[in-house]
């Protein structure tokens, strides 16, 4: 499989704190790769660095050989690397369908002025966006809620909407920010199935997650970080049997229970 994202010697410091320290790994096309690590390991920072929401202190992120780190988020999105957020980040006062239609921004062929004057290209875009939005809504099983204001949506559906917004941009790589956080067993089960279907759509998925069982079930490969550094990389089976990983997690747990 071909490499789609390359993370090279990525480092990010906040003052004296090194949140991400010299992390390197590769993401292959159409795989599901998870980044895990104990609390405060630097997962979120790494996530933001890959999505270009944060500039690295040193190192770089390459998308198909092209550097995307340090650029504005909308440029990374334009190239095909799109992130989702945790559930509260949606367009609250728009309906589900409006949320997804507006997120088709990158697909529009007409200019903004074209939309103002209602040119043919703009009308064609509007029609295509509507159709595509309906398809995405159906894909996410949100049909019944399509006309509901996003702020009235129940929790589980909010996350689906977040993924829908990401899908609307037609990304090559979708970065999911803790897609299973706060979900019960059933919800996680459904969400895992959904992430699998994302890959069936031809997407590469990189996710940052806490929930170990879900990660083990879903990932092709896993990258483990601790104290900002990569400590292991491999298949779920390899990770489960990795000394360093066990130590990192057990160590953290021991501390948590006061041993």
């Amino acid at each position, binding site marked *: 499989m071909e490499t789609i994202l390359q993370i090279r010697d990525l480092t990010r410091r906040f003052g004296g704190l090194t949140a991400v320290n010299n992390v390197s790994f590769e993401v292959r096309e159409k795989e599901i790769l998870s980044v895990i690590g104990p609390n405060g390991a630097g997962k979120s920072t790494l996530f933001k660095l890959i*999505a270009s*929401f944060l500039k690295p202190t040193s190192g770089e992120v390459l998308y198909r050989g092209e550097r995307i780190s340090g650029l*504005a*988020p*909308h440029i990374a*999105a*334009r190239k095909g690397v*799109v*992130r*989702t*957020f945790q559930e509260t*980040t*949606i*367009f*609250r*006062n*728009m309906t589900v369908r*409006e949320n997804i*239609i*507006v*997120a088709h*921004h*990158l697909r*529009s062929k007409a200019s*903004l002025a074209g*939309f*103002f004057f*209602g040119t043919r290209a*703009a009308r064609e*875009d*509007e029609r295509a966006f509507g159709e595509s939005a309906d398809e995405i809504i159906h894909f996410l099983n949100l049909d019944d809620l399509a006309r509901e204001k996003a702020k009235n949506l129940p929790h589980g559906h909010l996350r689906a909407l977040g993924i829908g*917004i*990401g899908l*609307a*941009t037609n990304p090559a790589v979708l970065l999911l920010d803790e897609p299973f956080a706060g979900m019960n067993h059933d919800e996680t089960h459904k969400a895992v199935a959904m992430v699998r279907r994302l890959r069936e759509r031809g997407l590469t998925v990189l996710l940052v997650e806490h929930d170990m069982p879900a990660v083990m079930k879903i990932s092709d490969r896993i990258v483990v970080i601790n104290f900002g550094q990569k400590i292991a990389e491999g298949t779920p089976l390899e990770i489960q049997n990795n000394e360093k990983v066990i130590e990192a997690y057990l160590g953290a747990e021991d501390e948590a229970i006061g041993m």
Partner: protein
Amino acid sequence: MTATRKLAGLAIFLLAVFVLVPALIAATGRKDLYYTLTSVALLSIASAGVWLTFYIGRINMGQGAFALMGAYVAAVLVTRYGMSFWWTLPAAGLFCALASLLIGLPILRLRGVYFAMVSLVLTEVTRLLALAVPITEGAKGITNIPLPGAISLFGITLVPDFSTMENPRIAFYYLAVTLMVIAFAAMYRLVNSRIGHICMSLQQNEELASSIGVNIVHLRLIAFAISSFLGGVSGAAFAAVTQSVYPSSFTVTDSVNFMLNCFLGGLGYVFGPMLGTLTLYFGWNLLFQTGEFQLLIYSSVMILLMLVLPNGLLSLGEGRRKG
């Protein structure tokens, strides 16, 4: 609302503005109302600009700066360079739009109260600039601005020279309401097109908007430039109506009023600033009879309205339709 209802509403509005109001004024002989309504129409254009910046999530208290700028640009162009009034309208608008791009680039990254404060200061800076720069003639301002000339196309006079008219106030009224109708029609189209939806996405979550590929810096600048364009046009027309412009023609109070007009009418409604301007302008004048209590009553009513109707006057209609 269905398309026919919208069309009917538009027809009634145009009829009222262009026929009924002048007929009523003629019947009652209250010619002074022309000046008042001209002011309302022009101020509502500037307020519409402020409303658009609200729409992208910025509290804009700098519209007075652009109205003042526009007024001076028009006045200088007419008095010094003999430019026709009709050309000064777009010229003032474009000047303000360009100025707003330069000013907006650094300040639009600020949010909430920080942007509001900086934009408020902008109004004051512009006033001080008008006092200091030689071309604006300092505190005595620019006076005796000639009335707008005729517009003719292929030898046919479309609009007669204002100075040859018996009552140019009526002509100014028609001019102002025409500008207002054009401005609000454009704004309505803007908000209901994809641009409006993207502006809305910006208002609700800038991070998410940029994650879907929206160039938020770019879009904020466009919205601010359109807003300032409207401010400039409004100021330029005002200069022509009053035939004068002073550094105090538009002050911080005006900037605040433009913002209040939007609040009062309703931030969620394109026509909010129009209704807000009308209500606020007449409300203030009606309270004149209360003398020293004018400001006290006015402010109390405003506070009360914001508490009771946080979504503005136009939200009243919505509640009824739902219920």
